[in-house]
């Protein structure tokens, strides 16, 4: 059990809540603040503390893995960050604003565990709709995208004057096409989502999250039930999103071997944080070969 002081001494969490500087990862210069900073984050559901006084940070433009067994509170933590979890107490700052601020909704992409898309629409129709919700036209658009095809749409959007309706429409169509391409579903773009396989469905769900070029992507078990080739491809996509687009990713999984692919890890168990570190640092600290062994080592250590 974690007590209520903001820096529980007995917790094996790296106890620095200030500027990132955690571990030997090639962290950013002190300039950008972490994408997510939590202090004493507690969530109560049905009179049970699902998350108990968590302190952690999620660095920007990195892939942070949120690992732990099923039912340990991963999804609850993700909902708290996205701002859709009730009864969250403590401090939770996401992209320099309190979590749940309406202005954040456009800047965070969130993929729930179950693919949340319309099965009675085609892949493209699904994305068209969500794109229209994210960027409905006159207030946001991408007027000079043709001149700078490599420029990120959101960056263009913020600085430009109001585009016309037609320009906004073409910008949306481009964003949709790119998102479909990102998840490698171009050949299925006009198939009814209900006819797709489970793996394809979850990729459509991911494509929706990629649509708005979000600054923070929160992915709840995105690779569960996928075959090894697809999993490898998705992780390659995650890495390219993090490095080329500067997006921060928080990816949950209960499969420990996925941990090796993350830059940083948050190990969660029964609503408490077992560790917050890089995979390498975890292994060397616990003198183990794999993250899975490190996790078990930490569980045993905590039980003692």
């Amino acid at each position, binding site marked *: 059990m974690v007590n*209520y*002081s*903001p820096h529980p001494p007995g917790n094996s969490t790296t106890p620095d*809540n*200030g500027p990132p500087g955690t571990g030997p990862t090639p962290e950013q210069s002190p300039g950008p*603040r*972490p994408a997510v*900073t939590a*202090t*004493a*984050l507690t969530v109560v*559901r049905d009179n049970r503390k699902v998350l108990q006084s968590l302190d952690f940070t999620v660095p920007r433009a990195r892939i942070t893995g949120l690992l732990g067994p099923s039912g340990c509170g991963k999804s609850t933590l993700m*909902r*708290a960050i*996205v*701002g*859709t*979890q*009730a*009864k*969250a*107490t*403590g*401090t*939770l*700052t996401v992209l*320099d*604003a*309190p*979590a*749940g*601020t*309406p202005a954040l*909704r*456009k800047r*965070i992409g*969130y993929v*729930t565990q*179950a*693919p*949340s*898309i*319309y*099965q*009675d*629409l085609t892949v493209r*129709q699904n994305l068209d*709709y*969500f794109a*229209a*919700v*994210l960027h*409905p*036209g*006159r*207030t946001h658009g991408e007027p000079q995208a043709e001149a700078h095809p490599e420029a990120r749409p959101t960056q263009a959007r913020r600085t430009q004057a109001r585009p016309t309706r037609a320009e906004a429409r073409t910008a949306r169509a481009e964003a949709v096409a790119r998102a479909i391409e990102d998840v490698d579903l171009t050949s299925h773009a006009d198939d*009814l989502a209900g006819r797709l396989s489970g793996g394809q469905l979850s990729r459509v769900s991911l494509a*929706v999250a990629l649509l708005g070029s979000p600054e923070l992507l929160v992915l709840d078990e995105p690779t569960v039930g996928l075959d090894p080739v697809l999993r490898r491809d998705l992780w390659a996509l995650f890495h390219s999103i993090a490095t080329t687009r500067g997006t921060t990713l928080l990816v949950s999984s209960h499969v420990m071997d996925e941990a090796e692919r993350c830059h940083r890890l948050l190990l969660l168990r029964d609503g408490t944080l077992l560790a917050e570190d890089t995979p390498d640092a975890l292994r060397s600290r616990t003198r183990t070969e794999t993250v899975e062994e490190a996790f078990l080592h930490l569980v045993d250590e905590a039980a003692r």
Partner: protein
Amino acid sequence: MTAPATYAHPPPPSGTPPATFVHPPLRRGNPMTASRTLATAARVLRQLRHDPRTIALLLIVPSLMIILLRYVFDGSPAVFNSIGASLLGIFPLITMFLVSSIATLRERTSGTLERLLAMPLAKGDLIGGYALAFGAIAVLQSLIATGIALWLLDLNVTGSPWLLLLVALLDALLGTALGLFVSAFAASEFQAVQFMPAVIFPQLLLCGLFTPRDTMQPVLRWISDVLPMSYAVDAMTQVLHHPHPTAAFARDAGIVAAVAIVVLALGAATLPRRTP
């Protein structure tokens, strides 16, 4: 610490230590936008288009029922005349109730609602989109049913057929509103369908379709006074008997519209932005 001061934690060491909530209160969400509402309506209609059988049932069944009714009362056309007009208002209410309760239940259970509410979509956009889409279907449905009733079955209406259509549209909105609201209390499609006898049938019995409302037992009469379908039927009856819109018609139609809007707002309140 990087957090804004207002949400700083832990609370001051002494004094009142109330729980500081991480998330800011959700009083002011996203403002409604016409384009998001329209996009939602288009999406709902697009979903329906992939389901031609549902469209066919929505459009054809009411007309078939009107035809059936005409020949059930083959020997007493006066009865057909009075019930037929009322039914033209009741059909859109029932069908839209069913369709919207199932559609929004699906939205809740599939996770798309959670995703939409994590996006910059106003609840009003979602509700308004559904109301627009189902309203459009209802207009089409009522056009067919009213056309058949008036010109094929010789339903005798003193007032303007457009007023019949107007009431039918208001009834459809009321049905959509009730369906949206009720879907919040259904955990499965089985339960959602069962709400139809629970919510619609009592209104059907008490709305004056079977017997004039003032001949009912007084308690039932009072109950029928607060049920919106009674006013839908009253409005239809006004059109049936009067060549021009009467004050009573305006009042009845206004009540149906007002109840629809209130229930739509209640329905919006049942869309949770946050998981408990």
